[in-house]
């Protein structure tokens, strides 16, 4: 999973007024990438990296343990393992006791040595090459290179001539795709919610909530806050209570709220001291489609005639709906939105089908029912034509005779460069 560079805050918003607390991620999830905050937040990692020796100074002494017991003192665990293994090896090969090194049979010897190396490596803890967390991600371990064959002090050491039996070490395949290597606090927090709401009942509920909030702000005279960013976190019960308010349009066009506007307006005030560290834990339960549909039955239909002709009100409502649902009203349609009804008409438009085949399956079934028409959702390839003719079986037989793979190109992988760029081998 590729990541985009993270932004600290939603663009274009000032820090004093735009602290964001969406249900998905809170404001404290946006962490500036300064070294001071990193060292404060991760003292263990910082101290670990401080105690870590550099790879250039550590790797010869570390890796020489695989090859030699003379150059550096081996760990206490490794020596008895090697000793017991040598004893086992001698017990398993009694026919050649005078030659324990067994130069006539280098393959067996190499496999034996590789097994010893594996045993040692399993016992060993790679404390000194621990992966380091840098900012929003954890960097892979520093590269450690093995000593060259001529630098190994052990005279018995013979480099392997083939890869058979050797253990594969290294590679970064999948490193950047693992979620554990990415800190959740480094995730980009945008104004738009991560998931777009498409259910019409939820969109209607969001519009009603926006209209109530805008009306409440206007009623108590906080019109300057109409263009600000408002928090979205609210409990399910509070939200249902808010949506159940009696919202009406008076004869003179004014909005009549059936509740305390000051309470709602107070909830729309952004608090910079809000602690969002446990936003993931304290995520309120979202409104379900059934709840929204049941609530919408109780609403007075006159609320849809509330005017949005004032451009300040229209902007505040559409902005809030975009923040809550991810539904953005296109610019060219903004001027035609004069009431709540027209706004709902724009927002509740069903999404276009992604492909023509999906549209045919939905709306043009008469074409699919014709006996002389076949509609294929995917491209018809040469292979499909051969299969339809029945010729592909013959081709498979011929492929088998010539030892050619029936599908693909056999050993040649597709997109090798892509896997290399992502850290694979």
């Amino acid at each position, binding site marked *: 999973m590729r990541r985009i560079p993270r932004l600290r805050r939603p663009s274009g918003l000032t820090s004093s007024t735009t602290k964001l607390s969406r249900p998905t991620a809170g404001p404290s999830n946006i962490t500036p990438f300064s070294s001071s905050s990193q060292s404060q937040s991760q003292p263990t990692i910082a101290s670990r990296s401080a105690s870590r020796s550099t790879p250039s100074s550590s790797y010869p002494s570390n890796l020489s343990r695989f090859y030699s017991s003379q150059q550096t003192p081996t760990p206490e665990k490794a020596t008895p393992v090697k000793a017991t293994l040598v004893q086992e090896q001698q017990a398993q090969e009694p026919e050649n006791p005078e030659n324990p090194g067994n130069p006539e049979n280098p393959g067996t010897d190499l496999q034996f040595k590789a097994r010893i190396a594996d045993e040692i490596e399993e016992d060993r803890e790679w404390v000194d090459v621990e992966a380091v967390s840098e900012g929003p991600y954890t960097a892979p371990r520093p590269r450690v290179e093995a000593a060259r064959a001529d630098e190994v002090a052990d005279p018995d050491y013979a480099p392997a001539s083939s890869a058979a039996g050797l253990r594969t070490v290294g590679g970064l395949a999948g490193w950047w795709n693992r979620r554990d290597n990415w800190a959740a606090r480094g995730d980009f927090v945008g104004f738009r919610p991560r998931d777009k709401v498409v259910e019409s009942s939820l969109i209607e509920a969001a519009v009603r909530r926006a209209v109530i909030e805008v009306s409440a702000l206007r009623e108590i005279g906080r019109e300057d806050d109409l263009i600000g960013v408002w928090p979205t976190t609210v409990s399910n019960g509070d939200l249902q209570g808010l949506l159940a308010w009696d919202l009406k349009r008076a004869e003179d066009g004014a909005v009549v709220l059936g509740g305390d506007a000051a309470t709602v307006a107070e909830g729309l005030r952004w608090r910079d001291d809000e602690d969002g560290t446990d936003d993931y834990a304290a995520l309120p339960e979202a409104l379900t489609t059934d709840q929204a549909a049941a609530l919408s039955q109780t609403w007075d239909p006159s609320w849809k005639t509330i005017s949005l002709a004032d451009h300040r009100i229209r902007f505040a409502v559409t902005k809030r709906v975009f923040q809550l649902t991810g539904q953005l009203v296109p610019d060219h349609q903004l001027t035609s939105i004069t009431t709540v009804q027209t706004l709902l008409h724009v927002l509740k438009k069903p999404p276009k089908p992604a*492909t*023509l085949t999906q549209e*045919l399956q939905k709306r043009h079934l*008469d074409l699919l029912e014709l*006996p*002389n*028409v076949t509609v294929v*959702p995917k*491209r018809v390839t040469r292979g499909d034509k051969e299969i339809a003719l029945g010729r592909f079986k013959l081709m498979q037989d011929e492929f088998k005779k010539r030892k050619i793979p029936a599908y693909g190109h056999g050993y040649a992988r597709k997109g090798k460069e892509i896997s290399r760029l992502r850290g694979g081998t």
Partner: protein
Amino acid sequence: MTIRALEKVSVGQNGIGAFILQCRKLDVHYCNQSGSSRGMNSFIKSQLSKFASLNPQIEFAVSPRPRKHPVLIGHYINGKHKSICVKNMDSLQILKKAELLRDASGDKIKRVNKPITSINESVRGVWSPYHGNGMAV
């Protein structure tokens, strides 16, 4: 006993006695994304079902060809095929092209530069070196 060939009483032509449509299959290719397929997509949605039900002898194969212009390909019983690129055409223009492919014989297009064509053999017959009185050189 003299052998006499059977006299030909008529020339076989498609439509005399029976008519067999020469077009056997029509491939309809479109793209979901590209704008040049807009007319083709609307043709498939609005015109194709009527056209296909009016021509039950023809097999219609609708399949996408991503990132390609829309194409109509007619396959004929003489083994040949004829393709028409219908990029940027509207659905009625594409319907005309589909009718063209349906009515085509599948033959190669030949140049006709004689004012009269006839299916009857010439009354003068075919010249033969073994017949006649010969010519003194």
